[in-house]
Structures are given as structure tokens and as C-alpha cells.
């Protein structure tokens, strides 16, 4: 004999168990196919080598902007290095505002943090020297490690092609 109430109880109890819940997952949209890509335009946009090649060319036509040993097998500290890198890039972008010709390259030699940057000759050399000293001093106090900036200047941004 079909016991409707009993079956309904079984179904409802199974629906209430943990396996049957469906929740809404909310994450930020990653837009992986639009990241770090300058879209092709009319032909008047000048791009540098770094901007011209997309992230999937890293390792093939582009090198790495940041080098450290934390991504090797058995090494730790990768997340901390990434956070440091992000901070350093924003710091350089803000301190040398409008002077950066290209992305900042960060190298780590043991304890030493080396920041390599290419600048446009927008400020006087004395102003550049001051900003370099200021950056080195502040960052070495933040991170408790020696910081060295190696700077090159160019007259204008080195154009690779026009998109």
C-alpha cells in the first residue's frame, strides 16, 4: 500500500540534508580574456613591447617582470613577495608620476631588492636623484631590507608598434 505521507517525509528530509542545498556563489568577474591586453584600434595608438604582447606570450616572447625564488619547489613566501611587488609598483607609479616609460622590473638578490625602471627625461636630474633616494630610504624602512634602484632614462617612450 502506498504510504504517501511516509514517502513525503523521506523526500523532505533528504531535501533538507546538506547534500541538496544550492547556494549562490559570488566572486569578482575575472575577465581573463581581457586582462593586460590593449585592443587593436585605428593605428594611432603607440604601444611598447611590454604592452603589445598579451599574457599568454609570457615565457615565449616576453620575460618575467619580477624574479624571486619563492615559486620553486619547497620554497615559501610566494604570497608575501607578490604583495610586496604590487605595493612597489604602485609606489613607483605614484612617486615618479608621468615619468615611467615602461613597467617596473623587480629583482631580488638574496636580501637585496633591486628595482629597475626606465624613465622619460621629464624632470631635472637633481629631482630624479632626490626621488631615487627618497624611494630607497622609505622602501628599505618598510621592508627592512636593502633597496637599490637602477634607473635608465630615455628621451621618449620606446614605441614597438602602433595599434
Amino acid at each position, binding site marked *: 500500500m502506498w504510504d504517501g505521507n511516509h514517502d513525503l517525509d523521506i523526500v523532505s528530509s533528504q531535501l533538507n540534508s546538506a547534500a541538496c542545498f544550492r547556494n549562490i556563489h559570488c566572486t569578482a568577474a575575472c575577465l581573463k580574456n581581457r586582462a593586460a591586453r590593449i585592443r587593436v584600434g585605428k593605428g594611432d595608438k603607440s604601444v*611598447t*613591447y*611590454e604592452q603589445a*604582447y598579451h599574457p599568454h606570450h609570457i615565457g615565449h*616572447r*616576453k*620575460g*618575467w*617582470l619580477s*624574479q*624571486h*625564488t*619563492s615559486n620553486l619547489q619547497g*620554497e615559501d*613566501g610566494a604570497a*608575501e*613577495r607578490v604583495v610586496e611587488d604590487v605595493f612597489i609598483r604602485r609606489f613607483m607609479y605614484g612617486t615618479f608620476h608621468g615619468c615611467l*616609460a*615602461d*613597467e617596473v*622590473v623587480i*629583482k*631580488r*638578490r*638574496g*636580501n637585496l631588492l*633591486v628595482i*629597475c625602471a*626606465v624613465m622619460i*627625461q621629464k624632470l*631635472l*636630474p637633481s629631482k630624479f636623484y632626490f626621488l631615487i633616494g627618497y624611494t630607497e630610504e622609505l622602501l628599505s624602512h618598510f*621592508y*627592512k*631590507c636593502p633597496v637599490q634602484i*637602477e634607473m*635608465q*632614462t*630615455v*628621451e621618449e*617612450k*620606446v614605441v*614597438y*608598434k602602433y595599434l
Partner: protein
Amino acid sequence: MAAYITHPALSSLSKINCNINAIYCFISFSRRISISSNVLSTSAVTTESEAAGRGVRGQRRSKRQAGEPRTERMTVDQDWTAVYPTAASFKPSTVPLPVRMGYPVKRGVPPAKKGNLELMKIPNFLHLTPVAIKKHCEALKQFCTEWPSALDSDEKCMKHFPIQVQSKEFVSAGLSLQNPDARIVTLKVKLSSLNLDDHARKKMIKLCEERYCKDTDTLTITTDSCPLRQQNYDYAMYLLTVLYHESWYIDWIVISF
């Protein structure tokens, strides 16, 4: 006299480079002002520049022309260790080589070395030429001593120094140079080199359990319980000493039962 004219539509503020009678001067003008390429007298230029300067935020910068790069003045037989004494990133104005790096544009060539980020990204060994390494060795020689001539084979080394102590050094790039795995000490010794009789040997092997390898007759003690390497080494030597003395001790009470 040469004057470079930039198209006003491309930039609102641009500088033109005037060479008049070997006097370098820079004029900045806004989009509305355009200067023809005909003759500009010196007086006209100065009044123009002053007017333009006052018009545009009153900035008067006397910019020095960038000098020629160091590569122009380098001789073939120079001291390269003075140019790159330590590890440094690639500087195009100090390396006199016509290096190109990068993927070429269609029907083009790889980009030149000036402002080339790819050349800066990669590590270079310009500071490690054979001459530089020779200099390093010469400087370090005064701190080195000769290898003892009596120890010329592996067997002699094993005979005189039967205990082998191993520890690892770690090199990494980060804020802290310490690695907790550097405190581990491994001590290896062959039981045949220790003075053990039959009973002592059997007791030693029983005490060691899995630290003894029968094929190579080696006892391996690994210590990592102390925070410092020196402490771990002392602990390992202490364990070896205790094992040795305990294996010689004959436990009559256990045997009599």
C-alpha cells in the same frame, strides 16, 4: 639653423628644439600658437619664449642636453671589471655591444638595446668575466691553506676521519635569509671503524633499530630537535657517545633471567 616642428594636433604642450648660432634654447607653446619654420631672429625667440613661458604656468626650465653614452669613449683594452664590478642590470649606455632582443615586428628586426625592457629583465653575467673571477681568486687566496698532502685518497680520509657530518645551507631571495631546514644535521659513521666486540655490535644494532643500514654497515643519526645547527651537532655526537658506551655495558640482571 634647424627647427623641429611638431604637429599641434598631437599634443597640447610640446617643446621645439632651436639651434640658433650654437645657442640651445627650448620653447614651449600651447596648441593655439604655431611657429613657422622660417628665419627666427634671436630677439624674437627670446620674447616669444618669455611670452610663452609666462603664458604656460610661468615655467622656465633650462634643460641640459643629454651627453653621449659612455660606450663612445670606451677603448678596446679597458678594464671591464671597473664597468661592471658587481651584479647589475643591463645598462645600454655602458655595454658597447649592439645587442638586440625581442620578437621582431612583421618584416622588421628585434628592438634595439636602448630602453629595452627585455634586456633588463634577464639576469646577466657581465660582472663574471674570466678576468673578474681571476681577481676574486687572487683576493681569496690569502685566506686559504693547502690541502694536507698525506690525505691523498678516499680510504685514508675515511680511516682518519670516520665520522661524516652533513648539513645543508639554503639560499633564497626574500626579506629573511634564514631557513628553518638549515638546522638539520646528519651524522654517518661505519660500525667497522668503531671499537666494538661481538656483544657490543649486536647490542648497538638492536639499539639503533632502523638507523642502521646492513648493506653499507653505516649508522645514520639525523637530529633536528634543537633550533640551532651547533646544538643539533652536539646532540648527535652525544647520542653516538651514549650508544657506544651503552653497547659495551653488559646488563647482567637481564641476562641472568
